[in-house]
Every structure is written in C-alpha cells, then in structure tokens.
C-alpha cells in the first residue's frame, strides 16, 4: 500500500542527492513589482463613473473595513439612484476576500494585480485609501479579481408573478396580476441590499428598505406599519404607483430592480383590513383640537392631507363633486389595474381615523369658496387634473371625438355609451393605454373582437407609457403606432366620423430634449374608427374659484402658485396634488403630507384667519 516500507532501513548516502542542486541556477526574485495572477485579489480600484454610492460593499464587508465618504462635486441625484458617496478602505482591516467585488450592484469595484504596496510615509493614514480608477497612490496595476457572471452575488432576476393570460383577461375588468405568494415575496424581498435608494427617490420617502426587510422576515404587519409612516394609499400605490423607487433601485443597474411595488401590495393584501386600520390609527391624537379644515377633492392628495390632520385631532371634511371618493384613482384608473375594493379599503382606513367625506358636493356651485373660508380654519384645494386637453386638429370638434378622462369616468360610474366597433386613440401615455385597454375589453365582450389603434407622437424609445402597459395592451389586441402625428379627424359627406389621418414623425425632440417634431408629409395614413379619443394632456377646472378669487390668487405659468408646502398667495388656502405638480399618485401623497404639516404649523401658531 505504501511507497516505502516501514522496515526500510534507508541509506546514509541518500542525502548526497542534494549535491546535484549545486549546479543549479539560484532563484532570484526581481526587484521590480511582480504582476500577480489575472484573478489576484490585490488592492481596490473603483470606477467612480459607475459607482453609485449605494454602500452595499460596506454592508458585506466582514471586517468592517469600509467607510463611506461624501465627495462634493460628484453626481448626487436621488431620482436616478446616485449618491455622491464612495467607499474608502482601511487596509488595516481588509482581508482581501473580494466579497465587495462580488456583491457590488454596479460592478464598479475591482481588485488589482498589485502584490505589495508600501508607503514612503510611515504613517498609518496612508493605509486608509479612497479607491478610485487610478490605483492606490496613483500606481495603477492591471485589474485582477473583478466581477464575472458566475461570481455575481447579486440576484439579478425578479421573482415571476403569476398573471392572467391575455385571452382570459381581454373581455373583463378583473385584476390582471395575482400578486406575490408569501414564498415569492420573501424571495423577492431577499434580493434587496438595503441601500435605501428607493427611499431617497420616493416622493413621499416611503420606508421601503424597512418594509422590504420586514417582509423578508415574514412580518407583514410590521411592513404595513412602516408603510403607514408615509403613505395612507398603500393599496393603491402597491398596484399603480409610478414606482420611482424601482427606477432608482441599485439592483436595477444591471438586472431587474427589486419589485418594490408588488412587495408593498403583497404586505397590504397579507394583513386583514381590520388590522390595517388598527395599525394606521397608531399614534392618533387622543384629544379634539377644535380646529376645522375643509378639503376640496378626495383624491390621494386631499385624503392624505385629511388623514394626517385627522390623526392630529382636527375635524376634517372632504368635499367630493362625484358620487364616490378617490378622485382619479377611482375615475381614471381602470379596475383591471386597481380593483375598487382595494381603493375602498384604503379610503376606509382614512375614514376610520375620523375623516368625513361628503360626496356629490360641488364647490363653486353647491358651496362657494367664500363660504368655506368663513366656516373653516383652513381650506385645501386638491382637485386634480380632471379635464382632457384636445388636439384641436381639424375635425376634432366632432361629437364622436371624445376625451379619454371623460370616458374613463363614465366607465367607472357605469354610465352607458355606444362602444364603437373600431376606435382610434391619440396619445402615448398611460392614460391612453388605460382607455385603449378598457375599450378593447368592452369591444371584446360586445363584438367578440378588438379594433383599437393607438397613435402616439413619441417613438418607442421615448415612449411615455410604461413598457409593461404597452406589452399588455398589445397582448390584448391593441395596435400601437409610434411616431404618428395627428393631422385630421376625417368626416365623410354625411357628417359621420371616418377616422384619423396621421403623418409620420421623422424626429420628435431637439438636441435639448425639447419637443420639436418634424413630419414626413408623404407618409400619411388614415386609421379608421367610429370614435377618436384624445388622450393627451390634462388640466384643472378652476372655475370653482370664481372670478374674484382667481384674480386675487397668484398663478405660475397657468397653475395655481403654491410653495412646496402648498401655501398659496391667499393665507387660508392651500393647494396640493396633481393640479400643482402634475399627475402622479405618490407625488400627490407626498404633497398631502407636506400640506398637512404646513397647516399644522399654521394652526399651532394660532394665527387664525377667521377674524
């Protein structure tokens, strides 16, 4: 079994074997720095153009060797998910394991092939290094250990979510996506590296890292608690938020961003409505302040303001002109994206903290602004952008040329209209997709087939609607044409609408990124349709102010002037939401908090304007 027997007595002459080595050339190490292996884990270099300062390297560092340093002058943009921080390494602690390289979401960090590094100054400080692309102390060595596909510790792929197949969803308004199961949610939550980019980018600064962590820990209630710190529209935002958080997510630098929106939805759905109400009411004032606040408009901005103020013990009344509260979240978003019962659940929570909502009351006609001013300590106008703009192209005044917001409102309200067998939609935003997909569903159930054409000015590279909206709309049979400029709504001799003609758009934006379309006159097309729906911009109906107040108020480029806290030029009036900042639910929520805080300060200062 063995090479040498235990009984072997050996030889006294054997060692002379070593004499043969006398003739060998001695091994000499060169004085120059030796370049290590291609994979060598030497010293850090960090590509500052790629690094986003997410500090994930710091979190994985097993020796607490990494300190984050703020560097003025570097890009610092929460919306883009970039911080002006970069990691510095303490080489008294680093053990060169390279985990920072393998986990780096951006792959900006690498290690070099530098073997030995000594400093002329024998001071400890010189071993505290801010790695940049130029190597340590400006001695650049080739890259050694750097990110490779098989060594990546970041999970770049999102958990798939079950959703209805196009054929089964295209004739009804049932919710499309199933939402995560608990298992899926935990796995998806585990992809998060807790960098907080989402928090910084969120208009209302939702505590996403905290609620993602809670979901990962299996504690959905804690997740809900974290959500209600900043967002009483968590059901809504869990489904239809524009999720800037996911745009900023550092995992999204190279892979699918963490599905933060769906995680929010998961946690909200996982906790019973009753329990959500209890959690939301935590911290509610146990006194009645005696102050009264009127809020015009029951959309996210108005109701968020109401929620905060009611929790602070004030008497809040919300006036809504339509039959039900919710504003655009109810009358603008189709039910297949946001089921009404989930919206109702959010609103129930808000009501449960004491907010009074009065529907079917139109301010301006039923009650005047002047009356509100007299009856309340503060008034908030949060009426949103409920009027659709028209292209005003020739023929656009035909009765079968409609505005998307009007139709969406009718669909929600259950008001009937003749569903056209074919329809052309002008516009390329999410609202255009909403109306196109809603009508496609109605066509499918009435006529068994879909004939919806969407014509958008923008090309697909600059499209306004979310990619998934475009994808799903197509799956449902909607034809989407990009780079088409509306020319004319064609009306035949009998006054019947034939359809829309469009021109090809050669280019749409100038070098500054501003709109400057150039049309191809030769490329003219007629899209047949018994109805043309205009789905471009939206605006506010500000007639409620009346002439006098309109004149008294200050305006800024057509919009009511308000500072970032919603304070208008009139002391008792605040404004919030889409009408100030443009359409976005989560912005409206953020606005609501700011306005509520501003009103709170105002009320506490005791400067009552009800003299």
């Amino acid at each position: 079994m063995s090479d040498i027997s235990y009984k072997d007595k050996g030889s006294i002459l054997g060692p002379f074997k070593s004499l043969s080595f006398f003739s060998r050339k001695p091994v000499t190490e060169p004085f120059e720095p030796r370049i290590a292996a291609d994979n060598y884990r030497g010293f850090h270099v960090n590509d500052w153009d790629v690094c986003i300062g997410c500090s994930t390297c710091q979190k994985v560092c097993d020796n607490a060797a990494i300190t984050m340093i703020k560097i003025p002058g570097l890009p610092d943009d929460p919306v883009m998910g970039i911080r002006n921080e970069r990691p510095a390494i303490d080489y008294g602690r680093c053990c060169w394991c390279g985990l920072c390289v393998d986990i780096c979401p951006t792959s900006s960090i690498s290690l070099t092939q530098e073997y030995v590094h000594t400093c002329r100054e024998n001071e400890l400080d010189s071993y505290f290094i801010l790695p940049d692309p130029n190597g340590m102390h400006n001695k650049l060595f080739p890259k050694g250990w750097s990110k490779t596909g098989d060594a990546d510790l970041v999970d770049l792929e999102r958990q798939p979510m079950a959703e209805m197949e196009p054929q089964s969803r295209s004739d009804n308004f049932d919710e499309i996506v199933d939402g995560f199961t608990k298992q899926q949610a935990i796995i998806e939550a585990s992809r998060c590296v807790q960098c907080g980019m989402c928090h910084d980018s969120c208009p209302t600064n939702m505590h996403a890292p905290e609620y993602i962590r809670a979901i990962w820990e299996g504690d959905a209630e804690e997740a809900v608690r974290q959500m209600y710190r900043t967002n009483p529209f968590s059901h809504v935002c869990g489904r239809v938020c524009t999720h800037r958080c996911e745009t900023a997510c550092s995992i999204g630098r190279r892979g699918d961003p963490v599905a933060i929106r769906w995680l929010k939805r998961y946690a909200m759905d996982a906790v019973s409505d009753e329990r959500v109400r209890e959690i939301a009411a935590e911290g509610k004032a146990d006194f009645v302040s005696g102050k009264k606040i009127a809020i015009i408009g029951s959309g996210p901005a108005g109701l968020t303001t109401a929620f905060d103020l009611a929790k602070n013990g004030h008497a809040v009344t919300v006036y809504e002109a339509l039959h039900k509260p919710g504003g655009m979240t109810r009358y603008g978003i189709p039910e297949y994206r946001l089921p009404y019962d989930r919206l109702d659940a959010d609103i129930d929570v808000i009501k449960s903290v004491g907010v009074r909502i009065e529907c079917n009351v139109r301010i301006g006609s039923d009650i005047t602004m002047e009356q509100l001013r007299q009856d309340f300590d503060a008034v908030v106008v949060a009426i949103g952008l409920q009027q659709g703009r028209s292209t005003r192209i020739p023929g656009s005044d035909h009765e079968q040329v409609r505005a998307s917001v009007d139709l969406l409102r009718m669909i929600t309200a259950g008001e009937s209209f003749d569903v056209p067998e074919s329809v052309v939609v002008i516009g390329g935003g999410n609202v255009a997709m909403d109306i196109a997909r809603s009508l496609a569903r109605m066509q499918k159930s009435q006529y068994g087939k879909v004939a919806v054409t969407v014509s958008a000015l923008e090309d697909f590279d600059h499209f306004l609607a979310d990619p998934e909206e475009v994808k799903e709309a197509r799956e449902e049979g909607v034809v989407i044409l990009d780079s088409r400029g509306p020319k004319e709504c064609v009306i035949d001799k009998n006054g019947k609408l034939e359809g829309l003609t469009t021109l090809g758009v050669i280019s749409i934006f100038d070098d500054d990124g501003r709109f400057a379309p150039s049309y191809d006159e030769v490329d003219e097309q007629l899209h047949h349709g018994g109805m043309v729906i205009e789905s471009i911009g939206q605006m506010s109906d500000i007639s409620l102010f009346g002439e006098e107040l309109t004149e008294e108020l200050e305006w800024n480029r057509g919009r009511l002037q308000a500072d970032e806290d919603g304070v208008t030029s009139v002391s008792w009036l605040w404004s919030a939401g889409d009408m100030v900042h443009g359409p976005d639910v989560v912005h409206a929520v953020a606005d609501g908090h700011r306005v509520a805080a501003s009103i709170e300060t105002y009320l506490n200062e005791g400067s009552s304007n009800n003299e």
Partner: protein
Amino acid sequence: MSEHAEGHSASYERIKSKKSLAEILEVATSFEQKAFEFYTDLIPKVSKNLRWLVEELAVEEQEHFALFTNLAKDPSIEEQVKQQIQTPVEDRRFSDYIQLPDLGDNIDDQAILQYAMGREDAAMKQYRELSDTTEPGAIHDLFEFLANEETKHKQELEKLYYELIHSGGPGN
C-alpha cells in the same frame, strides 16, 4: 390660414413693392409692433391664470420689434444677414394641423398658443415666399433671414404647446 393672422393679409403686397432694405425693414417692424400691441391689449381680457402666456408672447414680439429696429440701425446689415442664413431652419409643419381659433370670449391657453403659432407660421411663409421671388442679393438674403427667424419663433411656440397641452406627464 395666413388670412387669419392679424395685420398680415395685405403685407405681402406692401413689402413686395418696397425696394430698399431700409424700407422693407420698416414695414416688417411695423408688423411686429402691431403684434405686440395686439397681445398687450389682450392681457387684461384673459383670466389671470392665463396672463403669463399673453405676457410672454407680448415680450417675445417686443424682442422681434427690437431686433428689426437694431437691424435697421446697423450699418453692416448685409454682412450680418449673410452670416445668419448659412444654416436655414427647416419648417416642421406641426402647427399646420391645429385649427386656428376664433379668439372670442372663451379664450384659453391653448387658443392663445394656437393663434400665436398661426401668426408666426403666416409670417414665416410670407418671408419665405418673398425670398423665393427675389433675385439673389441683399434683399433676398434679408427675406431668407427673416423667414428663418420666424421659423425659429414658431418652433419655440411648438415646444411650449407640446409641453403645456400634449404632455401633462404620463399620468396614471
């Protein structure tokens, strides 16, 4: 549609009959002045939230007006005009398909913009036509220059129109 643009219906004939640069500039300047006066008159008539737009347009016309005045004063006008027309601006024809409004009682921001675009469009076409019908030389160059200027103005308005009317953002 140029007929609708205020003060421009007869201007083509008027300019055509002029022979010297100074004369032509004089007529053009008076067009711009009229436009400025038109917007200034409009300011108090529109609702307060729309005033900014009319005010901006008035300022814009005032700038045109100043431009023409300065050109007339400048002795090196021929040289300057030559340099400016090296890169002709292309017309993109966006506003062609927007109906000109009847600026009646219910004036809104969109109507004002439409009107303004139509006015710039008419002026642009006019100068372009004049440049096409004149022999190469200083006068031809001047029309070319003026057409370019009006095209640029129109395009600025088109951008504003898109931002105000077409994109209220992607929405929800």
